[in-house]
């Protein structure tokens, strides 16, 4: 019973940087960047957004520990102190077309109640096959498997849900383009933390205003799930890189939640795939509760297309995690 409790807690506590390896038929690493001048449909845009969010431009992508610097997830309730979790994450997309595995995602927690816990998520090419979720439980020194979490479950106790960060597929919604316009506002941030120094993340970023003036699509996505927690959401999608800077969630035409994502191009020479992006931070605000979440990925902990071999993404690595 206690073990089950621990497992379910681990499952519900995967923080902001474990993220997004999930795949679906139709959107995979072979999705080409649209040719200039191509008229895109709403579904095309949704697919491209999915591609960018799942780091398909990279063979592998790691957010690893560098000295004291780590990626952090901050959760702040309306009348509570900010709670901080640190995590390391390694994503591997480098599996052949004949391989049954599509991708693997390994997360290791370095602080909080989940300290020492490891998670390995395996996505299979066969869409009918469930994803594998394995957790290394440090107190038991054992690996446990568990079922896929629900889309609406909180992600690491944050404003973000599992659907927001990893489970939702373009086919779960219908899409409609609202038009193109310029982005007018800065991205959100937790006011009380803006620009302050944090032990692991270094200086917490200030609100990002550098996307102002960029041309974005308005993409309205209506959920196909019945009695869902939102009716539709509107995303601001960059017309060139397909980075979704902002998503607004509506229920009964009332704004209920906002997620802002500050994206940065990984290759600063500006060459290569414009979708080869990483998140600098995620900010979430739940307007019904006043709860805020902030996931920060310092640039210096980002590594990609490294020489790590596929066997790194196995149970053996989970077992090596120090208590």
């Amino acid at each position, binding site marked *: 019973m206690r073990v089950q409790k621990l497992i379910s807690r681990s499952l519900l506590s995967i923080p902001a940087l474990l993220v997004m390896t999930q795949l679906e038929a139709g959107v995979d690493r072979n999705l080409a960047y649209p040719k200039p001048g191509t008229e895109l449909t709403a579904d095309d845009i949704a697919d491209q957004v999915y591609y960018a969010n799942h780091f398909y431009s990279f063979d592998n992508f790691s957010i690893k520990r560098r000295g004291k610097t780590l990626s952090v997830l901050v959760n*702040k*309730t*309306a*009348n*509570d*102190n900010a709670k901080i979790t640190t995590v390391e994450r390694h994503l591997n997309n480098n599996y052949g077309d004949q391989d049954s595995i599509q991708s693997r995602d390994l997360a290791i927690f370095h602080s909080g109640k989940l300290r020492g816990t490891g998670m390995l998520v395996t996505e299979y090419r066969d869409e009918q096959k469930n994803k594998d979720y394995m957790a290394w439980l440090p107190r038991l020194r054992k690996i446990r498997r568990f079922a896929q979490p629900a889309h609406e479950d909180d992600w690491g106790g944050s404003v973000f849900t599992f659907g927001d960060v990893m489970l939702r597929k373009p086919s779960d919604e219908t899409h409609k383009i*609202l*038009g193109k*316009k310029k*982005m*007018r*506002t*800065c991205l*959100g941030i*937790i*006011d*009380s933390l803006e620009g302050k120094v944090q032990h692991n993340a270094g200086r917490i970023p200030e*609100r*990002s*205003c*550098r996307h*102002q*003036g*960029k041309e974005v699509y*308005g993409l309205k996505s209506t959920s196909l799930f019945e009695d869902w927690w939102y009716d539709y959401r*509107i995303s601001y999608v960059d017309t060139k890189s397909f980075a979704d800077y*902002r998503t*607004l969630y509506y229920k009964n035409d009332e*704004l209920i939640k*906002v997620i802002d994502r*500050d*994206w*940065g*191009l990984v290759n*600063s020479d*500006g060459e290569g795939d414009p979708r080869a992006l990483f998140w*600098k931070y995620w900010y979430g*605000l739940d*307007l019904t509760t*006043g709860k*805020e979440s902030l996931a920060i990925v310092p*640039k210096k902990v980002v590594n990609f297309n490294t020489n790590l071999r596929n066997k790194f993404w196995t149970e053996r690595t989970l077992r090596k995690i120090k208590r």
Partner: protein
Amino acid sequence: MRFKPSCFSKLLFGIASLTLLLNSANALDSGYVEAIKSDVEEFTTHEFHPPAESSWLSNKDSSSAQLADLQGFSDYIRTKSPGSYIFYKKLSNDYKSKLHQEYLSTGDLDRVKKDIFNYTREMKRNSRISNHNR
């Protein structure tokens, strides 16, 4: 008059709770929600009506940086890194534009600072070569 320890801790707890409540109120009342609502309305109305005096918008009165244009970016460098700005202001407009575009795509200020020094060296080297050729 002396406080009893229990009274004192209650008082401290009260002050702490009040501070937290005020902090949380700031997060929601900073004008962020109003700003994003007016932003998203533009998709349907095709007109942008910004709320007055918001720090989340790129209008002239806003305290947020005007990063969309080169002048705004230069001001941003001057504020964020006065040391680098000494070298930045001596660069040609081509280099400045290059740095501006780099910052817009990567958001990496540390990288921009390094490149300011790289471009400064490059400019000096180029001018030495051109002087030598003359």
